[in-house]
């Protein structure tokens, strides 16, 4: 989230799209209700009429996978009807930037496409710059090569009628949503978006969010109270897990995973640090070297020296172009290229797309370690449906883990608040906190390396001092190391810091090895003031619900990101009734501002507000993604329509298509005529492994079901409560039919398309008659930027069992 949960209450129009917040983030509705109490409108856009839709002022259905068409139509509506916040667009976004002559867009493809590589040469999308490297601009926004005019041209094709024929949303419903949301394109109204996996799990997932980001920038909704782009994260600490880089492509604090061609620290830093020739752009990532060196110091301590590049050579490197995300990982495992697998706090046998492939892949392993609080379909895959234990060589180890209330530590919520939690009870039996398991594992590995081993330096030199006096993992030691400390006595400005002092905040991190920091964005979380994550002060000085003394938010306790865009050029709030920050008497008051520089009207010292982009402006035109600088509608890999009505490019041209025996997919195939989608229910958590064992929850939501419309039920002779079979190119499963008015057939021109939906919280291990995971059906194809699977739009059949 750029904003945070409580801030939803400050909104005037709340769009919930790609999310069913009421079911899956129940507490969010507390703040939605508070917003409604002061007159806010709630809009729900969803293929199915959900619990969120039931509370909405406006509901619009859309066919799964067509969100960009829907949002593109909204962009066109805002531009055509001058509903955008002009001052904001001109001054704070890249609308006025001139794009280089090589940029082009034609029939669904941007300039620079290489069909063989299924990739773009993004250099062709660069801005036009002068000799000094300053981007050419036209504040009148009239230049045909300006971002504003290109944006207008790009979405001119997205007429309500065309959009409706793609999405299946009736035109009147489309217009209701567009009109309501566009009311926020003024200085004193706020619109927010709450999205979740309904937007990310598509082959156009990132561009769904980009499309909404464009709308938020056009309406001036970024940086303000009640605005922002807000991802409702699917796990209580999934924000923390990405912050700490439990992903293949990043290091902690969103630093880039190094590539093998980057042989030295200097090369890595040079290629990772964005540059700006404009002195008014903060270009915060110019601090990249400080964060990198401090991170390396936290890994290898005194062994990381200037002479050895602070141990850069010891970091694992990706091969050029290598992608080690989930789908590729299990593809490699299926091909027998992976020997061992730690499945830690997860359940891939049910959670991963094309779960049949995942399950078969695990049978190719030599060993599997399952760390979890309960047995699950992953640890017991070898005795699951269709498996012959005698033929499976994989040795499985079960390590019982402590549950969240059985250990101390921090949890980072969607709003970036790191909240410290104490331990309530001891873990049962020999279950241990994950930290202890990890700590002991590394101690053992280090011990084994003493006897020799390949490339011992990164292992033997690793600083591993995270245990307390009794030898147990100590969450405080780790938290302090993440915050970081000085490695030697230093004087910065007129202030003296001693070796071992905690670094006060990340502006003081250094690139010379004098500071160590496990994650720069968390620097300030645990400093001389103590454990700021454990703070529980209930003061709300702004009245906006920022609660600056409750827990701690990254970065530097800023509660609303890009808050310098919430003010005019002189630093006065666009909306005086909800001031996030304000320039008064030569300083900022309110939330922690995005840097101390004076407002933009100060022509010498003033800085641009979007400090995390190299140019300092919000990006309507986003030249960094793999699939284009403007979101463009493409059909899902599996879809019910014979062509893309907006271009000759049927599916996203940059997706990777797996071609093995287990990687089947079909489009417009009469055997699989209905759109399928998946979702969660309130009662079960993810694959259900924490909730299916719980009698009150399984009582409320006991068995796998499929929701289908009355029209489809009639077509197939299915009655409410009947047993049915749902199948796709990749698998099949039994469901109970839930025949409902809440799904309706979509009318796409002359074509009628039915959609059905299933939860993915069930699995064979418990309860015995609960049914299987709907991920047996979902396709293993991913977004070209993130490789998140397209679990939200695929093709199925439904027949009476």
């Amino acid at each position, binding site marked *: 989230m750029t904003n945070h949960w409580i801030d939803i209450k400050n909104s005037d129009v709340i769009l919930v799209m790609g999310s069913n917040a009421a079911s899956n983030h129940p507490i969010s509705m507390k703040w939605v*209700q508070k917003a409604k109490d002061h007159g806010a409108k709630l809009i729900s856009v969803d293929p199915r009429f959900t619990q969120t839709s039931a509370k909405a002022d406006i509901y619009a259905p859309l066919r799964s996978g067509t969100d960009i068409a829907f949002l593109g139509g909204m962009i066109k509506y805002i531009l055509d009807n001058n509903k955008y916040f002009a001052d904001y667009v001109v001054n704070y976004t890249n609308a006025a930037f001139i794009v280089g002559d090589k940029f082009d867009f034609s029939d669904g493809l941007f300039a620079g496409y290489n069909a063989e590589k299924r990739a773009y040469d993004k250099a062709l999308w660069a801005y036009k710059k002068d000799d000094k490297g300053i981007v050419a601009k036209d504040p009148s926004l009239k230049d045909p090569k300006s971002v504003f005019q290109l944006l207008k041209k790009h979405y001119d094709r997205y007429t309500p009628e065309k959009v409706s024929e793609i999405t299946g949303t009736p035109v009147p419903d489309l217009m209701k949503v567009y009109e309501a949301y566009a009311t926020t394109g003024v200085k004193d109204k706020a619109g927010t978006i709450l999205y979740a996996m309904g937007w990310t799990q598509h082959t156009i997932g990132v561009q769904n969010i980009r499309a909404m980001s464009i709308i938020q920038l056009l309406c001036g909704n970024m940086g303000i109270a009640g605005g922002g782009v807000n991802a409702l994260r699917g796990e209580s600490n999934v924000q923390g897990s990405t912050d700490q880089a439990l992903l293949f492509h990043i290091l902690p604090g969103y630093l880039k995973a190094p590539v093998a061609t980057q042989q030295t620290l200097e090369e890595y830093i040079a290629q990772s640090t964005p540059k700006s020739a404009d002195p008014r752009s903060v270009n915060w990532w110019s601090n990249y070297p400080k964060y990198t060196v401090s991170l390396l110091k936290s890994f290898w301590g005194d062994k990381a020296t200037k002479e050895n590049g602070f141990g850069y050579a010891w970091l694992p490197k990706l091969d050029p172009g290598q992608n080690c995300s989930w789908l590729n990982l299990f593809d490699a495992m299926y091909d027998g290229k992976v020997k061992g697998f730690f499945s830690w706090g997860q359940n891939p046998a049910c959670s991963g797309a094309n779960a049949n492939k995942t399950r078969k892949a695990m049978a190719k392993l030599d060993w599997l370690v399952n760390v979890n609080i309960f047995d699950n379909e992953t640890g017991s895959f070898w005795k699951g449906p269709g498996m012959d234990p005698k033929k499976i060589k994989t040795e499985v180890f079960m390590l019982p883990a402590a549950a969240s209330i059985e250990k101390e530590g921090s949890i980072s919520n969607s709003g970036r608040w790191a909240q410290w939690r104490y331990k309530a009870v001891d873990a049962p039996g020999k279950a241990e906190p994950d930290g202890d398991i990890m700590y002991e594992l590394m101690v053992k590995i280090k011990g084994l390396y003493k006897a020799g081993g390949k490339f011992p330096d990164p292992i033997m030199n690793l600083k591993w001092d995270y245990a307390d006096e009794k030898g147990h993992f100590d969450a405080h030691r780790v938290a302090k190391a993440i915050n970081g400390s000085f490695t030697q006595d230093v004087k910065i400005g007129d202030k003296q810091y001693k070796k071992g002092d905690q670094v006060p905040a990340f502006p003081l991190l250094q690139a010379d090895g004098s500071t160590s920091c496990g994650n720069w964005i968390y620097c300030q979380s645990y400093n001389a003031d103590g454990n700021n994550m454990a703070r529980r002060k209930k003061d709300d000085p702004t009245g906006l619900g920022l609660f600056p003394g409750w827990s701690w938010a990254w970065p530097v306790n800023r509660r609303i990101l890009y808050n310098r865009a919430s003010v005019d050029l002189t630093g006065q709030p666009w909306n005086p009734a909800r001031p996030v920050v304000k320039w008064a008497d030569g300083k900022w008051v309110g939330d922690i501002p995005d840097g101390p520089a004076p407002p933009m009207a100060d022509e010498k010292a003033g800085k641009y507000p979007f400090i995390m982009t190299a140019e300092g402006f919000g990006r309507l035109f986003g030249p960094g993604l793999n699939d284009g600088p403007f979101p463009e509608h493409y059909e899902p890999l599996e879809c019910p329509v014979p062509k893309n009505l907006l271009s000759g490019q049927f599916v996203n041209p940059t997706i990777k298509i797996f071609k093995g025996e287990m990687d089947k997919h079909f489009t417009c195939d009469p055997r699989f005529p209905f759109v399928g989608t998946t979702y969660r229910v*309130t009662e079960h958590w993810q694959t259900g492994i924490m909730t299916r064992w719980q*009698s*009150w*929850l399984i009582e409320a*939501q006991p*068995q796998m*079901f499929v929701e289908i419309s009355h029209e489809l039920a009639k077509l197939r002779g299915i009655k409410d*409560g009947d047993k049915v079979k749902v199948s796709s190119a990749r698998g099949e499963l039994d469901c109970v039919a839930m025949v*409902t008015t809440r799904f309706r057939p979509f009318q796409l021109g002359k074509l009628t398309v039915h959609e059905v939906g299933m939860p993915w919280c069930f699995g064979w291990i418990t309860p015995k008659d609960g049914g299987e995971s709907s991920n047996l059906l979902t396709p293993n194809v991913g977004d070209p930027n993130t490789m998140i699977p397209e679990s939200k739009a695929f093709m199925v059949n439904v027949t009476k069992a």
Partner: protein
Amino acid sequence: MAEGYSILVDTSKCTACRGCQIACKQWNQLPGTKTQQLGTYENPKDLSFDTYKVVRYSEGANGDGKAYWNFFTEQCRHCLSPGCMAAAEKDEIVQDEKTGAVLFTPATKDLDFKATVEGCPYNVPRQNPKTKVLAKCTMCFDRITNNMIPACVKSCPTGAMAFGERDKVLDACKKRVEELKKTHPKAEAINPNDVRVIYIVTDDPKKYFKFAAGK
């Protein structure tokens, strides 16, 4: 008696998260019963000796063709003049003077179950098939007499449920209905003068649950 406590259930704020249904089971240490998916989110399918509270889901299409999905967290209404007590001869069922909670005692095993259910306008009492004892919501009597609010109210994330002194609840109820009428002309409180658990609905009560406003 008109003093004591009341619970306001504002269904316009209910999202059917079922926190209340689970909290009720948890506080009262009631077992999860064996259920099946019957083609609805609603489960268990009815109140029982082991289930004092069930969230009812009711869906359909309005006159304009738009879908609706109403949620109604069913429980004992704790009537001011409890119909269930009509069949009682002694203290099998008592009405607590201070709180107004209507309580079933173990002596309900001697009651005529059929007559008791028939006496209840809302079809709430249920019998343990083995012990013949009757059970239903207690308004969390053990909590409210120890300065705690009922477990269901405590669990509600949106403020759809509120607990308090009856006169204050009635005031809040009146205000909320007036406010809702601006956008929902059919908004009403269901039998506020007869019950302690007062539901606010924005449409015909029958579109929420067949016994929402009584049998």
